[in-house]
């Protein structure tokens, strides 16, 4: 240790400055200031205004409950950020249960040194996303961890919402003959985040598809469509979502590759990186399993919502073998679709 390092003077108390300090998670004045200046103004609503330990909700009937944690690098990417993801992700999980998302909790884990401006932006995005999805952020928690122990900011959200579907929705309801409907083009979120993280100089900026999908799901329910199953397509992409359902439901599923929309720029990026668009992540896409006889009507309803304007039928459920998902390629030959094995890693050449 040099003389320079050895200082006996008592360090001045850390001010708030313009970055997150450990004191911001310490439960004292600094934390109150953080909550008062950044968090509460953004999420302002009567539940938070009570400054209680938790929210007291008046719920009746069946309620769906979902949670998800969000760790994304970079925090901001074209088409969204960790805040929009954290709200839409849980809102969408509730929608997949046939529920109307109503209340969210938010847990923030902040890394010491995170610029407060970054936090403001993320919290602002969460508020905007919550407004767009019609949910309130009614309770929350903030912790601060040492510098180097988190990628800037981690978020957990949990959500509650009344189930509005009048018939059960889930893999167990899927039947042979059901139509498989996809709500729009796939692969944009995964490529947008990868491009932002790695700094690929693609000619066009690919934006994430991050969006709430509650509206079209509620519209399907309101139209009286007998939805058998819904699944939002996040990590693992369309392939993982569909294979999981085929395995759980004990059915086979036949997809038609030509019907699956992939934007030109996303398709080209996948080619360059050696990725299958069917395995690339989405954040505003879902598949719906409905009886064949209702497929056309379901498509018409979905296409009225902006977020699912590109809805298409991509396949049909078969009687088995259980878990077998095939995809008919451009040359008319079927290939097996499986979940991704391990992490998605770009190939060498």
């Amino acid at each position: 240790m040099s003389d320079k390092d050895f200082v006996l003077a008592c360090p001045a108390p850390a001010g708030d400055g313009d970055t997150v300090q450990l004191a911001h998670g310490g439960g004292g004045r600094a934390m109150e200031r953080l909550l008062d200046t950044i968090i509460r103004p953004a999420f302002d609503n009567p539940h938070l205004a009570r400054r209680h330990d938790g929210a007291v909700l008046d719920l009746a009937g069946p309620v769906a409950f979902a949670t998800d944690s969000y760790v994304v690098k970079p925090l901001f990417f074209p088409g969204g950020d960790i805040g929009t993801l954290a709200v839409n992700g849980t809102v969408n999980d509730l929608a997949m249960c046939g529920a109307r998302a109503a209340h969210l909790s938010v847990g923030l884990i902040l890394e010491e040194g995170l610029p407060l401006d970054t936090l403001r932006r993320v919290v602002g995005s969460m508020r905007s996303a919550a407004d767009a999805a019609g949910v309130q952020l009614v309770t929350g928690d903030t912790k601060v961890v040492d510098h180097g122990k988190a990628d800037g900011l981690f978020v957990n959200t949990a959500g509650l919402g009344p189930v509005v579907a009048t018939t059960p929705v889930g893999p167990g309801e899927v039947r042979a003959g059901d139509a498989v409907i996809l709500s729009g083009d796939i692969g944009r979120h995964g490529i947008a985040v990868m491009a932002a993280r790695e700094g690929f100089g693609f000619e066009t900026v690919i934006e994430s598809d991050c969006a709430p999908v509650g509206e079209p799901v509620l519209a399907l329910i309101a139209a009286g469509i007998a939805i058998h199953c819904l699944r939002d397509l996040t990590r693992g992409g369309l392939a993982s979502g569909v294979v999981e359902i085929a395995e759980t439901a004990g059915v086979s599923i036949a997809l038609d590759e030509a019907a699956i929309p992939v934007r030109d720029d996303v398709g080209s990026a996948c080619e360059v990186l050696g990725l299958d668009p069917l395995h690339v992540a989405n954040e505003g896409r879902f598949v719906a399993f409905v009886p064949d006889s209702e497929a056309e009507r379901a498509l018409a309803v979905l296409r009225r919502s902006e977020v699912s304007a590109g809805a298409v039928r991509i396949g049909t459920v078969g009687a088995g073998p259980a878990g077998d998902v095939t995809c008919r390629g451009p040359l008319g030959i079927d290939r097996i679709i499986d979940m991704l094995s391990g992490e998605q890693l770009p190939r060498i050449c």
Partner: protein
Amino acid sequence: MKFRDEYRDPKAARGYADAIARITTRPWTLMEICGGQTHAIVRYGIDELLPDQVTLVHGPGCPVCVTPAEYIDKAIEIAGRPEAILCSFGDMLRVAGTGGDLLGAKSRGGDIRVVYSPLDALKIARENPEREVVFFAVGFETTAPANAMAAYQAKREGLANFSMLVSHVLVPPAMSTILDGPTSRIQAFLAAGHVCTVMGFEEYYPIAARYRVPIVVTGFEPLDILEGVYMTVRQLEEGRAEVENQYSRSVKRDGNRPAQEIMAQVFKVTPRRWRGIGDIAASGLGLSDAYADYDAEHRFGPVSAEPETETECIAGLVLRGEKKPPECPAFGTRCTPDRPLGVTMVSSEGACAAYYRYRGRHAAALKAAS
């Protein structure tokens, strides 16, 4: 997308398949060199469009698969040093050496970074002058020019904390070795289009002449491959053994001269062991004497070759085209991408991985049924 779709047009594909069937009078066995071609064949079911008499067997062109285990061990050893940052293409991370893989080394705290270009590794070296940045340079002639450029730049900038662990391989010597094999059944090659984009195809003339095999430089899209097969079968049927270029939209006879020049400047031809195949004379690239300072083996000690251990895995036979993945008794049962016995099931360019991914664990049964 339009451009890609043109090369996947079902009517044109059927047209080629019919033309191949019309000219085929005898059984022929063709090898496609490149793992990218293997994946296209299995993914699009191109082999299923061909007449029964035409058999496609899969070649050694999977860079991850043929990288010797001892180089992976060395990379893991380097990654374990506190001062080191090991940079690698992503595909290399899940391939095991003799003990463990780079993903495991990463989970134990090794600073291992996935890069998309060797120039990204240079950037990391510039940004971390107090660390030793090592780039794991593997691949065929396709990746060699960019890797050579990284060493060239490092030398020009005097970037003393950058080095490369080099295990590059060359295609033509491997083709000769495969044909020399006593049990080889290869009668013609679809040469790898991207390798030839760099190298041209003059170096294939001696092979075609010596072994009397047609060699057709072929692209990667379904119609490229079907046209390559058509050109190859036509040669076989006509008793010719020539070098032809199907992939002329990308490949010129003399290749990419500037790319070859930087390779010649930075690398020298060396003997190389191929995983699953064995030692092949003059089949690798190592850093030339002028670039010896940038050789990770100089800084961190040489890679020590150890004999490959015998396992149930038949990856070596698959890489030499002597067996197809579903012929392996472990395929899809004791060997899957989640629990691989060998590299060809791990790499995204490996033949076993292609069969498993696109045809599933029942690939053998499916093929028999068809």
